[in-house]
């Protein structure tokens, strides 16, 4: 039964919240990877975009862990806040991505649909993470981790090559950050729920 002791506190256990967050982050990253691969295959072949995409993600300034040791040493509240910060930082670009991608010449339906789906699911994951942080955090939820995105003009450039590179770079960063979130959530779940014994 969902609420065994009807009178008592009827809420989802933290483990269940983490299971759903991990499943959702996995789905978002799956979509982000597919979208990047489709775009790369269709619009980026032979344009050398990867060389230019180096160090150009708007979330690069967030001090996210870059290896296993860093991911294991960071306090879980700090890692949760970083995840929230990355998710928040993607709200704005995902709104514009979903609308601007419609204007790409012959953009396949599969890319269009994924852009809208990721925007929706990102909001849903943000809602879930705020719930998890509320449960885990002793203090207030730290709302100020956030990096602004000023990439909209580059998605609307007249020159096609520059505009396609702007999309490529945004999708490359989305694939990277959604993978980070998925990885960190798995590490947190194993640490907080399974005592590092997943």
């Amino acid at each position, binding site marked *: 039964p969902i609420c065994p002791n009807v009178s008592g506190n009827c*809420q*989802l256990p933290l483990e269940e*919240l983490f299971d759903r967050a991990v499943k*959702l982050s*996995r*789905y978002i990253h799956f979509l982000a990877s597919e979208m990047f691969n489709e775009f790369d295959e269709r619009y980026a072949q032979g344009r050398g975009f990867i060389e230019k995409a180096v160090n150009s993600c708007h979330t690069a300034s967030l001090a996210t862990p870059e290896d296993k040791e860093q991911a294991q040493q960071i306090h879980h509240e700090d890692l949760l806040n970083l995840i929230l910060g990355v998710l928040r930082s993607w709200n704005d670009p995902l709104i514009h991505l979903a609308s601007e991608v419609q204007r790409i010449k012959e953009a396949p339906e599969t890319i269009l649909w994924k852009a809208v*789906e990721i925007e929706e699911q990102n909001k849903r994951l943000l*809602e879930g993470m705020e*719930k998890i942080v509320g449960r885990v955090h002793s203090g207030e939820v730290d709302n100020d981790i956030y990096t602004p995105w000023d990439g909209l003009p580059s998605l609307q450039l007249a020159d096609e090559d520059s505009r396609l590179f702007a999309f490529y770079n945004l999708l490359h960063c989305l694939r990277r950050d959604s993978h980070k979130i998925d990885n960190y959530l798995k590490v947190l779940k194993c640490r907080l729920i399974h005592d590092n014994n997943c």
Partner: protein
Amino acid sequence: LPPEKPTIIKCRSPEKETFTCWWKPASDGGLSTNHTLLYSKEGEEKVYECPDYKTAGPNSCYFDKKHTSFWTIYNITVRATNEMGSNVSDPHYVDVTYIVQPDPPVNITLELKKSTKRKPYLVLTWSPPPLADVRSGWLTLEYELRLKPEEGEEWETIFVGQQTQCKMFSLNPGKRYIVQIHCKPDHHGLWSEWSPEMYIEIPTDFRVKD
């Protein structure tokens, strides 16, 4: 007399994105009775009213995407009111993940083949229900099939996990079989209805197309 206590029958979500609840109206003793569905979310004092009484037909409430959260438990009640007073149902707790009941699988195909040792075997293939297929990864489905000889009593049920095809070896030539498949979300949730019955006859002198 005020109306009797209404009862919430069930709540279901077909794709973990929206959900609907149905209730059995209280017997109204001849007076015109009005029903209101109210809900609150875990950890919140605020009480909300049903966002949409129409979409899912009479005595129902439809929660669209905007009103569906899968991070919380809903506490739902229905109040019946007539001119003599009102009565409230027992609370019905809903966690959307637990009430997902997909539609049955579709595009089921049955094909007879012969193994290298001339023994007939059946290859079944199917597709996820359209609503779930679009979001593979968000809604992971598991499948179970059942078959029995047409005149037989007992179904043989086989759980095939997340695969969408299956080979059946132990079939008796000369028999006509009924086959059905249903599906369920991989963790929580409910089995779909069985797919419509399909029939396959295993010929006695079975020649395979070379």
